[in-house]
C-alpha cells in the first residue's frame, strides 16, 4: 500500500496586516521556503499543485486562474479547492495514494486584511432568502450555538473562557502567533458580551499568512528527506447547511474523524493521539470539537481543560500553536495552520513549546460560520 508523507513545509509570518506584500507574493514566499525545505525544484519535480481559496475573500472572481505563476505551477496540473486547506490536503493525499502522482503541492493563504468589509462578505455566506434578510453581525450564530452547547453539555462560561486563556498563553511560545497574551480567566469573562454568552476575547481575530506543504509518496519521501512525516489518514464531512437542522454537537467533526481514524488504524484516539490542533475560532468550539473527535466524552472537555489535561504538560496538549485565538483566523489557511503545528512538533522543530517525544498528532478544521463542514488529518512521525 502506498504511503503519503509531508516532505516540505513553507510558511510566511502571520500578521494582522501585510501591507508590503501582495497575496501572490505571500504565496511565493511560502512556496519558495517549502521547496527549499523539501529540496525540490517545482518546475521539474512537482506533478500536481492544489490551492485552497474562496473568491469573495480574495476580492476577485475565478481565483483558480490566478494561481499558477507564483507557485511554479505554470503549464502544470493544478486546481483550486473552494474550501479549507485540509480539503486541499485530502485531494493531494488521494492523488498520491492512487498512484496518479508522486509529488504534490498544497497551498492555502489568507490576505484577509485586503478585505475592508469582512462582516458583509461573511454575511453573503448566509442563505440569501431565509437568513441574510434578517440582518445582523454574522457572528451572532456562534452565540446561538454556544448557548445551546452549554445547555446541552453543562459546560460553563468559565470553561470556555479558559480556552482563550490557554491558547493565548501557548501563543506566547510560538513566534508565528501574533495574538499571544498572558491573560487571566477573569479578563475573558469580563470582556464584552458581544453575542451573549459569547465574549469578545473568545473570538479569534483575523490574520494574514500563507502555508505551502510538499507531499510525496512514502518511499520517495524517505529518499528526499530524513524528516518526513506520514499523513496516515484524512477525512471530511458536511452537515446540513441549515442552521435550524443542525445540533450543537459538531457532527461534521465526528464523521470526519471516524474516516481519518479508520484509515490511520486508530481505535482508541485518547490513548493513541499525543497532541491535537483543533479549530477554536470561537473558544467554545475547541471544547465542542474535542468531544466530537472522541478526545473527551461529551460534556467533559471543559472540566478536563480546567484540570490541565490540554496544557503543554497535560495528557493531551491541544492547540500548542495558540490555535486561531493565538495565531489568528487565517480563513481557508486555518486547517494548514493546525497541520503545520503538528508537523513541526513531529519533526522536533517546535522550539519553546516542543513536546518531548510525540508520535501521533491530529489536525482538525472547521469551514467556519455559518456552515457545518470540517476535516480531520492524522500525522505520524516516521519510526
Amino acid at each position, binding site marked *: 500500500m502506498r504511503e503519503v508523507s509531508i516532505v516540505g513545509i513553507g510558511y510566511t509570518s502571520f500578521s494582522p496586516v501585510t501591507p508590503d506584500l501582495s497575496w501572490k507574493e505571500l504565496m511565493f514566499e511560502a512556496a519558495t521556503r517549502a521547496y527549499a525545505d523539501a529540496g525540490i525544484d517545482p518546475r521539474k519535480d512537482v506533478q500536481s499543485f492544489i490551492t485552497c481559496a474562496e473568491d469573495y475573500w480574495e476580492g476577485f472572481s475565478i481565483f483558480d486562474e490566478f494561481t499558477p505563476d507564483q507557485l511554479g505551477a505554470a503549464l502544470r496540473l493544478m486546481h483550486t479547492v473552494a474550501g479549507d486547506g485540509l480539503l486541499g490536503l485530502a485531494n493531494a493525499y488521494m492523488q498520491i495514494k492512487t498512484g496518479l502522482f508522486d509529488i504534490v503541492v498544497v497551498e492555502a493563504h489568507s490576505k484577509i486584511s485586503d478585505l475592508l468589509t469582512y462582516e458583509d462578505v461573511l454575511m453573503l455566506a448566509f442563505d440569501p432568502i*431565509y437568513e441574510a434578510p434578517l440582518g445582523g453581525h*454574522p457572528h451572532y450564530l456562534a452565540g*446561538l450555538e*454556544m448557548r*445551546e452547547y452549554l445547555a446541552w453539555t453543562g459546560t460553563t462560561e468559565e470553561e470556555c473562557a479558559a480556552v482563550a486563556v490557554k491558547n493565548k498563553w501557548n501563543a506566547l511560545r510560538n513566534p508565528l502567533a501574533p495574538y499571544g497574551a498572558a491573560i487571566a480567566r477573569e479578563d475573558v469573562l469580563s470582556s464584552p458580551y458581544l*453575542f451573549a454568552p459569547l465574549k469578545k476575547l473568545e473570538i479569534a481575530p483575523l490574520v494574514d499568512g500563507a502555508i505551502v506543504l510538499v507531499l510525496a509518496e512514502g518511499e520517495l519521501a524517505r529518499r528526499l528527506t530524513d524528516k518526513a512525516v506520514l499523513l496516515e489518514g484524512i477525512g471530511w464531512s458536511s452537515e446540513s447547511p441549515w*442552521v435550524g437542522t443542525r445540533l450543537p454537537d459538531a457532527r461534521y467533526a465526528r464523521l470526519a474523524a471516524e474516516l481519518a481514524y479508520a484509515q490511520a488504524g486508530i481505535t482508541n484516539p485518547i490513548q493513541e493521539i499525543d497532541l491535537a490542533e483543533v479549530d477554536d475560532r470561537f473558544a467554545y468550539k475547541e471544547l465542542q470539537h474535542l468531544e466530537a473527535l472522541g478526545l473527551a466524552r461529551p460534556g467533559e472537555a471543559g472540566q478536563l481543560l480546567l484540570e490541565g489535561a490540554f496544557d503543554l504538560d497535560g495528557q493531551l496538549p491541544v492547540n500548542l500553536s495558540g490555535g486561531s485565538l493565538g495565531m489568528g483566523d487565517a480563513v481557508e489557511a486555518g486547517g494548514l495552520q493546525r497541520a503545520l503545528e503538528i508537523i513541526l512538533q513531529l519533526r522536533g522543530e517546535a522550539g519553546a513549546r516542543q513536546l518531548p517525544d510525540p508520535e501521533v498528532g491530529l489536525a482538525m478544521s472547521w469551514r467556519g460560520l455559518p456552515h457545518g463542514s470540517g476535516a480531520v488529518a492524522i500525522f505520524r512521525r516516521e519510526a
Partner: protein
Amino acid sequence: MEKISKPTEIKHQLGHMEVDHYHYTVGLAGERFFTALREEGKLLGARCESCGVTYIPPRIYCEECFAELDEYVDLGLEGEVRSFTIARIDRDGRPLDPPEIRALISFGEDTTDLLHLLGEVEPEEVYIGMEVEAVLKPKREREGKVTDIRYFRPIK
C-alpha cells in the same frame, strides 16, 4: 529577498467587487412558503412521511432519505425558543441599544427550527424553552419575505 522597509513607500489601490445585484429564485417550496405567509399569514413546513420530519423553511426534498416532498403542513404561529443570543453590536461593530435578540424557534420535536428575532421582551427575560408566537406585518405590508414575520414574542 529585498523588501519594502519604509511605510511611506507601501502602495495599495482601492477596489470594489460588484456583488450587489442578484435575482434569487425562491423555488417551488419557497413559493408555497412565502405565498402562504403573505396571503394567509401562515407558516408552512414540508413533511417527509417516511422520516416523520417536517422542514421549515420547506424544501422539496428530505435530507434524511432524499425523498421528494410535496406535503405541506400548517405549523401554526406558536413555537418555543430553542436557543438565543443577545447581539450587542451591529455588522459595522457599532453598539446596539437596545440589543437584538436572535433565536432559533422550534415548532415541535420532529420539526426543524427557524432562525429569527425576538421582540417585546427584555434580554434577561428570555430562556430556552420560552413559548413564543410570530408577530406578522399587517397583510397590506407583507411582501412574501422572511421579514414579513417582524419577530417572535412571548405568549402572555
